[in-house]
């Protein structure tokens, strides 16, 4: 055992990148398996008979039985699991219990809308929170401008406390219904994106802005910034070269952890705006008890979260190579 770990340590020292990527890939695979298993287990674990619940209490028994056979629910559990995995490998997600349409088709038509929403919102979070937080940090360093700091803290904690679906409802009521400035629902072109993206991005922006500010304040008191100040560099060089990169790595780690929550948040926001994405499909099928669609949505959203996590980790490792060494 010690020799094995010693050999591993040696490998890690010589090829930190390979070991890092390998570990991350293993982790991703395990997590994806977990998601697949969870989505497989869902329809089989729900109390009562999901097929009957979906088809209605007065559905003829032979129709229910046929549906159960179609879903493979009459087989042995391990056989079901293998069958499920094989189907999944072929991109087959089964058919909706309610409409009988293939679920894969539904996902394929709806996933792009959800991804567009999430990516746009995340981009907004980054472009506002990072420069804003750094500026706030520079302005309020060392207890300067206490009133600005108080206003900022108060505003961001209130904004961060507003849940996205409530904000979405408020925006709809105020801007779409009240002022008629934006479409109320659906995807009708670029201006339809404004409200859903705003609803999704506002709270994470407030959270990230505070974190970037605190990180900037921490870096500003670092010894190496004092050494850089001693060189009397122009302010732009000082802040952009000596403060920004160091404040960014920690901030981006937090930003990366906001992305999965943002993807999950699309479910609620899409429901408010009747956005033609996965989230609203999931919300509808939850009410209709269409577990075939719910399990596919869980699978897709869960995998999206994992892949986003993985990509963020890789991006961070590229930005700060020391983290690769630290971890291996």
């Amino acid at each position: 055992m010690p020799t094995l770990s010693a050999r591993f340590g040696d490998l890690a020292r010589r090829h930190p990148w390979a070991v890092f990527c390998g570990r991350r890939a293993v982790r991703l695979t395990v997590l994806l398996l977990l998601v697949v298993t969870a989505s497989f287990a869902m329809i089989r674990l729900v109390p009562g008979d999901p097929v009957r619940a979906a088809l209605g209490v007065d559905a003829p028994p032979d129709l229910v039985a046929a549906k159960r056979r179609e879903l493979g629910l009459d087989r042995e559990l391990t056989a079901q699991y293998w069958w499920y995995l094989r189907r999944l490998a072929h991109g087959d997600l089964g058919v909706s219990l309610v409409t009988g349409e293939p679920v894969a088709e539904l996902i394929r038509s709806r996933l792009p809308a959800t991804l567009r929403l999430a990516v746009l919102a995340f981009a907004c979070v980054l472009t506002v929170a990072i420069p804003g937080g750094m500026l706030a940090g520079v302005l309020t360093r060392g207890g300067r401008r206490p009133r600005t700091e108080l206003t900022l803290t108060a505003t961001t904690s209130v904004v961060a406390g507003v849940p996205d679906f409530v904000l979405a409802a408020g925006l709809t009521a105020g801007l779409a219904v009240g002022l008629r400035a934006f479409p109320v629902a659906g995807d009708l072109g670029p201006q339809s994106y404004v409200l859903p993206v705003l609803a999704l991005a506002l709270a994470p922006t407030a959270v990230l802005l505070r974190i970037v500010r605190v990180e900037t304040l921490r870096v500003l008191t670092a010894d190496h910034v004092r050494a850089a100040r001693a060189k009397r560099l122009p302010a732009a060089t000082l802040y952009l070269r000596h403060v920004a990169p160091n404040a960014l790595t920690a901030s981006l780690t937090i930003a990366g952890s906001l992305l999965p929550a943002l993807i999950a948040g699309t479910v609620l926001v899409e429901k408010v705006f009747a956005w033609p994405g996965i989230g609203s499909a999931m919300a509808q099928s939850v009410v209709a008890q269409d577990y075939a669609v719910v399990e596919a949505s869980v699978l897709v959203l869960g995998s999206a979260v994992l892949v986003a996590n993985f990509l963020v980790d890789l991006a961070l490792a590229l930005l700060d190579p020391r983290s690769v060494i630290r971890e291996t």
Partner: protein
Amino acid sequence: MAPSPSSPSSRSLRRPSRGGDGDGGSRPSRPSRSCWATPMGVVVLAMLGSLAVLAVAGPLWWGHAADRPDPSAVLQGPTGRHPLGTDHLGRDLLARLLASTWPSLLPAVAATLLGAAAGITLGALTAVVGGRARRLLGAFVNLLLAFPALLIAMFFAALFGAGARGAVFALAVACAPGFARLTQTLAAGVAGTDFMAAARVLGLRRHRLLLRHVLPHVAEPLLLNVTVAVGSALVALSGLSFLGLGAQSPSYDWGLLLSQGLERVYTEPLPAVAPGIAIVYAGVAFQLLGEVLAKTATRHAAPRHAEGPAPPPAPAGRRPASPDHVLEVEDLRVALPAGDRTIRPVRGVSLALRRGEMVGLVGESGSGKSLTALALADLLPDGARATWNAHWFLGADVGSLTRGERHRQLATGMAMVFQNPASAFNPALRIETQLTEAVRAHHGTPRDQAVEQALVQLRRVALPGERRLLRSRPFQLSGGQRQRVAIAAASMLRPDLVIADEPTTALDVTVQRQIMDLLRRLRRDDATAILFISHDIALVADTCDRVLVMYGGTIVESLPARRLADGARHPYTRMLVASVLDLTAERDGTPPTVEGPPPDAVGTDPGCPFLDRCPQRLDRCAVEGPVPTLLAPGHEVACWRPLPLAAPPGQPETEEAET
């Protein structure tokens, strides 16, 4: 961020701000009461109080009105009788909103407590189980944490079946991993402590260990997180109800009211907005509570920015600078605000450096030598203020310069070498950038020329490796290499003055000697004046031309370095010298020890700062601070009763006795 060895000069920088708390150690345990007396504390208490009153009184007062259908007033907008309008059965929406405070808050609290209990148990277990089980538990929690809580909650809510109870359990499952991770992190700190080891040796049972030793030590931060989690649970539960996974008709909560209100948002926005405001109100209340509690836990006196870095009052043209002086400062004082007081770590320092002169500034930690250096370089921390009677640098009166002129003067005329080479370089930037950026910014040197100059300077500090070194990052160099690079960087612009603030303290003895040689060569080749700050009087005696001994924020003695061993006249200098028995042998970097308490940093006492530790004080010393007097050419002492040149008491056999 780098865990630097707690070095004398960094302590001297930090001590004032800590000393400002006044009553020292007892402070952190007490401020809990005062935190609630802040405006924020009052607001939080008021918000939570109103929620509690509504939760209890809501169903009693409005419960009846909330459930009374009125077929004549279905789906009405806001009217005088129904301020928020009515729902599809004609029930009053305001009554429903207020009556549902309890069913909205209770599940959130229940879900948080359930989840916290499960998570904390899981996390605390890792502190008491063996290695393999601990790794497995850690990995398990990590896997769960990869998913956002909302997604997990939705999954389990769908699994447990729509309904309030299912939603509570789902949310408990969703928030458990977060608590488990937090507990693991906190418990890991406890697991390594001595008393845990002792408890294990005593053979205490696991649940005993858990209850008696682990949990009490991690209770406070966990409690704080439970508070914050109630707020997010409330929001998440409303979200589940909103999706149709939470409360089911005929029961209702804020999330369901919001969902129902949203269906008619096109005609009536208020029925959707009002429950939203209620959710936000409660969520913010709990979040603010967490913030107040966190402040209570980690309160520290933020430095007040009382008087900005105002230009010091300089009596203009009081005295012209001597032509051969690079730097001349008279009666330099530094004031730092700490809490509601002002401390004065530097109180009247006068010094002058000639071109090419190397002057040592010696003193124990807290004597104000680093702040003196920072004041001379205009690098004082925020809130600190420097004043002086006269301050000349490179022939210009500093007080009469504009900001831009002063900036340019310092940019090319002065360079600094800091104590800790591990933290003085930006870890994210290549050595090349950090070496060349100053010369490129101030002389406009093109990049390739700047690189050539950098290579010349690196060769001067005996660092071969050349371009490969330029491409490396600070963490790839050793401490000694980094300090050489720092000296190379300081000499890139051929400054007139280099301030080296304990440049050798963090290095081992052989490297120390090399660094000192480099500084001496820099002085000889470029005629650069060097202000060398150190607590190591032996090192200073070896290398400098002149020595300034600092104590309690003032310079108590100034004398030629070669006279240090036998000619010191101030009792403090004498004690410092005596503490290093052999001036040439002992140089292990430990600060010289002088008995007695360090001087008080507030600096309001009128007498001599050395009074409490002085073996031969006079009555006069307590009421009147000694003024520097010239005893011999180049030798000044601030003491009412300088020691005679003869052997000091208790030191008869040292060499100064013979002269």
